[in-house]
């Protein structure tokens, strides 16, 4: 019909843009990380791989190897992300399940309400919690009247009464959950929605209880969706710095994202910042590639139906 170059030409501007402003940008990070600084503390990237200077990279790696701050903060970040994702799954899976399997007339509305937080500015959602958890905020008052704050103090999750926003790891974790759970619920919903109801009915017909039908049919079938969703939200969570800055602003809950932000944007150590960014991207690369493989499989199957 048309030459095979038609479509490549159409795609060319987009490809050029992404190459220039995405791939080359990453190359810039690598070259700054393997570069040097000048006496004005400005980063000097080395563009030729043969010139690369491993001094700063080794310095950061040494810091990590010796268990100093880059490692401790990364472990803390990892713990935050792990706990947050566990909580997101705990709340998100049942909600996604209900939305997917519900066949009533409210389905559209429920879906709408689940999608809504997706489109509210993340910072506004955190601002809402800063208002609520400030010392005279409604949230603090409610938590005080129901004595939940006493419970948390007792469990060691809160340091002082009313100090929700003063450097509490628990507040950061709950804020991360609040912030990212919509991004988990939607993929989970999509995955659960695709499960054919007849599989479940078959399990029930064969004499299984609702719970065993869930455990042996629904859960395994939704596992790819769970994994995809978990990977999808863990990526931005690892690079999150603003959540901590907003609900805690304390050095004791700082995350790897805060370190990178301090080095590159708030300070003048861009070379070290580039190294740390590179290392973070490498760690997350595994997750990114996994997710890409999953999406491509789904995309391929969709286009094969064409």
């Amino acid at each position, binding site marked *: 019909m048309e030459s095979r170059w038609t479509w490549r030409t159409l795609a060319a501007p*987009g490809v050029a843009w992404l190459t220039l*402003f995405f791939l080359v940008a990453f190359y810039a990070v690598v070259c700054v990380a393997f570069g040097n600084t000048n006496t004005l503390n400005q980063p000097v990237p080395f563009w030729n791989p043969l010139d690369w200077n491993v001094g700063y990279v080794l310095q950061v790696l040494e810091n990590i190897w010796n268990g100093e701050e880059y490692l401790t903060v990364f472990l803390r970040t990892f713990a935050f992300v792990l706990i947050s994702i566990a909580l997101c799954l705990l*709340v998100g899976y049942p909600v996604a399940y209900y939305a997917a399997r519900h066949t009533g007339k409210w389905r559209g509305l429920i879906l709408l309400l689940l999608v809504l937080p997706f489109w509210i*500015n993340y910072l506004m959602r955190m*601002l809402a919690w800063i208002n609520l958890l*400030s010392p005279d905020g409604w949230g603090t008052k409610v938590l005080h009247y129901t004595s939940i704050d006493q419970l948390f103090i007792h469990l060691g999750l809160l340091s002082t009464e009313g100090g929700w926003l003063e450097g509490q790891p628990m507040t950061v974790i709950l804020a991360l959950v609040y912030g990212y759970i919509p991004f988990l619920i939607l993929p989970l919903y999509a995955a659960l*929605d695709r499960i054919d109801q007849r599989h479940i009915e078959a399990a029930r017909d064969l004499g299984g209880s609702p719970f065993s039908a869930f455990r042996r049919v629904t859960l395994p079938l939704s596992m790819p969706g769970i994994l995809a969703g978990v990977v999808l939200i863990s990526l931005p969570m690892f690079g999150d710095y603003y959540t901590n800055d907003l609900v805690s*602003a304390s050095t004791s809950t700082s995350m790897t994202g805060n370190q990178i932000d301090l080095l590159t944007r708030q300070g003048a150590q861009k070379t070290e910042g580039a190294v740390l*960014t590179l290392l973070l991207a490498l760690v997350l690369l595994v997750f990114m590639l996994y997710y890409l493989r999953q999406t491509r499989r789904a995309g391929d199957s969709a286009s094969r139906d064409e």
Partner: protein
Amino acid sequence: MSWLRNPWGQPRFLPLLTGAYILWSIIPVAIAVLFAFNDGRSRTTWQGFSMRWFTGDPTGSVAHNPEYTAALEHTLILALICVVITVPLGVALALGLQRWRGRGSGSVNTLMLLPLVTPELVMGVALLLLFLNIFNGWGIGTTAQAIGQVTFAISYVVVIVRGRLVSIGREYEEAAADLGAPLHGRLLRVVLPLLAPAILASAGIVFALSIDDFVVTQYLAGGSDTNTVSMLLYATARGAPTPALNALATITLVLTLVTLALAYLVYRKFAGAGGAAEAATLGEM
């Protein structure tokens, strides 16, 4: 207790949990919006209804605060620039990718999906270093902010438009080709009109994405005239601002939601039956 245990339907705790989740999810924001209309200076004590923080108060309101209005203006300008550049680029890329046969399509596809999975901080640092070391003619500032936003928004357009391309199939195009229409005619008069709902929907989504964007916009910000609403929210949230900040956030919230509602309605009206499948594809994003 037996009410909770419903043997033939779902366990009743599910709707309860979902209801509780939805309330927990939406109510804090609703309260923040509520206080934008507070009559007093407090953001925690309700003192009556008033529009003073939007336009009334001669010193404190959004309309009279030059910093806030400048930020709002800049946010909208950036969003418009972003849409104008991203949508054509993304549509062309989607068409090209979808029909691309042969070598290279896999890598291009991966390249297109990469911004979706890259943490924004990594992108922010990468773009900052790019504009400081390679494109220092442009430097950081509005141009850089626009370029950064386009870069991660393209992928959304491509995914949406591709989904639509899949569902409309190639019959109409083939019919037009059989009738002797040349390529550009087929594209302009058959494919693009069929894609129109997806194009408009993705324009709406890119607009909303741009307004809500934070990390990339902050990293590439130059002087104070490149502040956006998101950046202002970040900078002032922990201070002691007045409800004017809530008002500013509410304005952008309303803008975003209206845009998305319009995009959704356009899509629904023209997309018809294919809509549900595409919604699922979107959810997969």
